[in-house]
């Protein structure tokens, strides 16, 4: 740890978007949950790649994994797929309302 503590909330106007504040909060919580799911999927993919390449796992192997551009691109495609499913109903409603 560098010991640095940074400001976490931006100063300024905080608009409300949905019919009540708690729904805004719920959406934010949902996005953080999906984000952590994506982080876990990336970690699993890293673990699989390390195992495939070395046939073994050391304690720091996943944290020390240095992905190449092709690996990053494949994870990016997986996230696009996740988002396509996440936003499918919203996109459909915008088109056909």
């Amino acid at each position, binding site marked *: 740890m560098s010991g640095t503590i940074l400001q976490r909330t931006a100063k300024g106007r905080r608009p409300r*978007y949905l019919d009540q504040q708690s729904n805004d909060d719920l959406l934010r919580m949902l996005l953080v949950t999906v984000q952590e799911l994506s*982080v876990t999927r990336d970690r699993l993919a890293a673990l699989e790649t390390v195992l495939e390449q070395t046939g073994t796992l050391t304690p720091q192997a996943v944290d020390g994994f240095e992905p190449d551009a092709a690996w990053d691109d494949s994870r990016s495609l997986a996230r696009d797929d996740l*988002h396509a499913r996440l936003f499918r109903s919203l996109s459909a409603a915008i088109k056909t309302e």
Partner: protein
Amino acid sequence: MLKLHQHAALPKPSRDEAARQDYVHDLRRSLAGVRVGFAGLYQDRIEPGFIKTQGRPPKDRHEVRHAMTANPHYQLWSAAQRFSQELGWESVIDTVEARGVPDPEVKPPLGTLTLDPALPLPKYHDAQDIHLMPGGYHGGEAADPLANGAVFDMGVRIWGTGGMGPENDILGVITSAWFAAEYPDFNLKRILDMGCSIGGSTLPWKRTFPEAEVHAIDVAGPIIGYGHRRAEALGVAVHFSQQNAEHTNFEAGSFDVVVSHIMLHETSRSALPRIFAECHRLLRPGGIMLHFDIGPIVGTNHFQDFMAEWEVLNNNEAFLGTLRKIDVEALIVEAGFAPDHVSRVIAPGPSQEAVKSKGYVNFTGAPGYRGIKQS
């Protein structure tokens, strides 16, 4: 997926931090895809609904806003878009907190850094944290003198989904290339980049004009301090100093070119005349002032106008909307530039080759305002 050039002053994210950052990067790309659908929704449903109740189409972007923000799909998208911005900053703050800002200790130093901690922060930087970056450029409650510079460097990649390039430098690359082509015989010895932030646009000017002495100023200490460290790490000699573009300590007539990139919209209506007057003072006769920023509103597409202002209403870009509506050229004339020496310019967007090799966003060009000081 475009990654930042991992230079020696850039904090390196852990595996999970990188995954969080990349997630928000891709979330924003997907939300941009969802956003495209609103043009059809507006045309097919929202505007006809408005006409049905009002007997006429919306007369301006404000009426479009009232109609659009009442739509639950737009509400949901807009909330997600806002939170993607917040989560983007959070995801890079994790890395900067954990790692700090590495010091490559380049010796001998190439450029210089002059901080002025006593410099008053203008209201337009203190009233709100611009584009929701917690602590803004000045760092707010952060004690680390460089941290928010690194937060900005890493966060811009997420905000722009990589379109600024691996060194967040697309604007400086295209503006300096435009200048070199527009003025092949110009004697360019001394350049000032105003509102330089972390120097993303400054460094390409030095690379394009390696013989020139390049100065860069910004009002906020952390981005200047980080900008200096970053420039040293990237091997580019720039003289950074913490100064307000409204009043600098440089000598009158001491610059051949004064330039800024997306600075004007982060100032204020009262600051603009002072900035232009300061540029006029700083230029030698025949010197050129260039401010690249969002151009004025053209046409009467109130829906596009409304969507273009999402950042104003939701991303703490308070002055952006006003800048699009005022006569900037008139203000430049009032600051002392002759009317026939003031014009609008466009620095063409990146080449297809650069789009492919650097991952730059493909766009037509950066609009700017030009004032030439009379000889």
